[in-house]
C-alpha cells in the first residue's frame, strides 16, 4: 500500500537530511506504528505519503503509484484515498459534529442523500452516536478526536495516517481512540500512526518502525515501543531490526561510514 524506495528528503542542503535513504513497505490492511523522538523524520514520512513534499531522491509509492508521477491536478483524487488525523483535531469550530464530518463529503461533491446516510454510520463506528448536533467545544478532547477520525474515514480511504492522534489526550481516553483506530484497521484500512506514546505501542503489539535522525533503526512485527533486543553498540544498532530490508541496512551502513 505504501512503499518507500531509497527515499531521501533534504530540507536544508547544509543540514542533515530529514530522511536518509529510507526503504520500507507497508502492506494493505497493516497497522504500523512510526516511533522516534521529535525530529526523527516521522512527520516528513507522512508528508511524503500525502505528496505535501517531494522526495529529494528515491521514489514513494502509494497504492502502487509513484507519487512523483501524479500530476498536480490529480493530487486531490489521490488524497481522497488517504485519511489524516492530527494531534490538534483540526475541527471547524462553528460547525456541528455532523456538519464537520459531512464537510469532507460535501467538498468532494457527494450527494445530500449519501451524506445523510453515511455520516451517522461513521459516527456510530467511532462511538459518537447521539452527538451529531453538538458543537466541537461542547465535546471532550477524546470525543473531538473521534470526530476527526470520523471525518478522516468517512470517504472510505484505503489508508489512514495519524500524526500523534493521542498526543493531547490522557491515557484512558487514548486507549479508547486506539480501539477506534483498531476497528477501522480491522475493516481493511491500512493505518500508519506516528507516536511517541510508549504505553499505547506496548499495549497494541503491532508493527513498529523506529526512526532516528532520518534512518530506520528498527522495524519489528508485534513489537514494543523500545527494542526487545538489547543494544550492544551504536555501530551495530542499525542492523538489529529483524525486519529491516537488505537494501535499507546496506544504505544505512553506507551512510554511517
Amino acid at each position, binding site marked *: 500500500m505504501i512503499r518507500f524506495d531509497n527515499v531521501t528528503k533534504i530540507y536544508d542542503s547544509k543540514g542533515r537530511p530529514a530522511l536518509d535513504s529510507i526503504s520500507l513497505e507497508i502492506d494493505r490492511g497493516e497497522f504500523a506504528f512510526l516511533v522516534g523522538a521529535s525530529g526523527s523524520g516521522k512527520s516528513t514520512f507522512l508528508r511524503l505519503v500525502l505528496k505535501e513534499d517531494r522526495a529529494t531522491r528515491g521514489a514513494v509509492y502509494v497504492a502502487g503509484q509513484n507519487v512523483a508521477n501524479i500530476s498536480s*491536478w490529480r493530487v*486531490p*483524487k489521490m488524497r481522497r484515498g488517504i485519511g489524516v488525523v492530527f494531534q490538534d483535531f483540526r475541527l471547524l469550530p462553528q460547525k456541528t459534529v455532523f456538519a464537520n464530518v459531512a464537510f469532507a463529503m460535501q467538498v468532494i461533491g457527494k450527494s445530500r442523500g449519501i451524506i445523510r446516510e453515511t455520516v451517522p454510520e461513521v459516527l456510530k463506528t467511532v462511538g459518537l452516536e447521539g452527538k451529531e448536533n453538538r458543537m466541537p467545544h461542547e465535546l471532550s478532547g477524546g470525543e473531538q478526536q473521534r470526530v476527526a477520525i470520523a471525518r478522516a474515514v468517512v470517504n472510505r480511504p484505503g489508508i489512514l495516517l495519524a500524526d500523534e492522534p493521542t498526543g493531547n489526550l490522557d491515557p484512558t481516553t487514548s486507549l479508547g481512540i486506539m480501539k477506534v483506530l483498531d476497528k477501522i484497521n480491522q475493516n481493511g484500512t491500512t493505518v500508519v500512526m506516528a507516536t511517541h506514546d510508549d504505553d499505547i505501542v506496548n499495549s497494541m503489539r503491532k508493527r513498529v518502525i523506529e526512526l532516528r535522525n532520518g534512518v530506520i533503526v528498527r522495524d519489528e512485527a508485534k513489537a514494543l515501543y523500545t527494542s526487545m533486543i538489547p543494544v550492544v553498540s551504536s555501530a551495530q544498532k542499525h542492523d538489529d531490526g529483524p525486519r529491516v530490508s537488505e537494501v535499507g541496512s546496506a544504505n544505512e551502513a553506507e551512510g554511517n561510514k
Partner: protein
Amino acid sequence: MRLAFVLGEIGSGLRRNLSMVVSVILVTFVSLTFVGAAGLLQMQITQMKGYWYDKVQVAVFLCSDNSSSPNCAAGPVTDEQKKNIESLLSSPAIKQYVNSSNYESQADALKHFKEQFANSPIVDSVSADQLPSSFRINMVNPEKYQIINESFSSVPGVDSVVDQRQLLEKLFSVMNGASVVAVGIAALMVVCAVLLIATTIRLSAFSRRRETGIMRLVGASKAVIQLPFVLEGVIAAVIGAVLASTTLWLVAKFFVEDNLAQQYRDTAFISANQALLVAPVLILLGILLAGVSSLLTLRKYLKV
C-alpha cells in the same frame, strides 16, 4: 450539491469580510466610472466630429472697411475681384476639391450673427458693414484645406482664409485632454482596485485557512477550494461595475440628454442609450480585474 456548497462558501466569505468587500465595491465603482467617463468623452468627440465636419467649411473672408491685412490695403473688395475669385473657385484645378460653395454677403453675415448671438446685447451695436462678406466652401476632403489656403490667400480682395475645423480642433483637444486625465485617474484607481482585491482575497484565504486545509486533506479539487475566493472578488467587482454603469447612465440621461442637449440644440450629444453600450465593457473589465488578481493572489497564498 457542489454548486450549493460553493455558493454557501461565497456567502459566508462575503459576510465575514464585509468591510473589505464594501471597499472593493467602492474602489472598482470609482475606477470603472472614470474608465467609462473617458469612453463616453471619446464617443462624444467622435459624434461631434461627424456632425460638425459635415457642416464646417473653409471660409474665404473678403476685404471690408475694417480689414487690416496687407492684401486689403486697396480697400474693400470690388465686384471685379469677387468675380475673379468666383471663377477661380470654378476652375478645374480647385473644383475637384470643392463639394459646394456659396457666397455670404455682409447682410447674410449680419443675419447669421444675429441668430447666433440672439440673447446677447452685442447684436444691437453691430451693423452689416462691420462684418466681412465671405465665400463658404464645403470641401470634398476637409484635410485638403491647405490647397484652398494657398490658392486664395494672396488673391486680391481676400482678407484671410480660415479653416473653421481648426476652431473645433481646439475644443476637441480640450476634450481629449480631459479623457486622458480620466484614463490616468482610472488607471491609478484600477491599480488600487487590483491591490485591494488581492488583499481582500488574502485576508479571506487566511481567515478560512482551517477550512481550506481540511478541504485539501480530504481531496477537494482545486476548483472547489479556489472558486469561492475568486467568485467573492468577482462578485464585488461586478457590483462596482454595475454601480459605475448606472452612474454613467444617470449622468448621460439627466445631465447630458435632459440638460446640455436642451440648451445647445445645434450640437450633437451622446444619448443615454450610448452610455448603456459602455456597461457591458465595464462589467467585463471588472470581472477580468477581479478574476486575474484573485487567481494570482491565490496561487501565492492558497496552496492546493
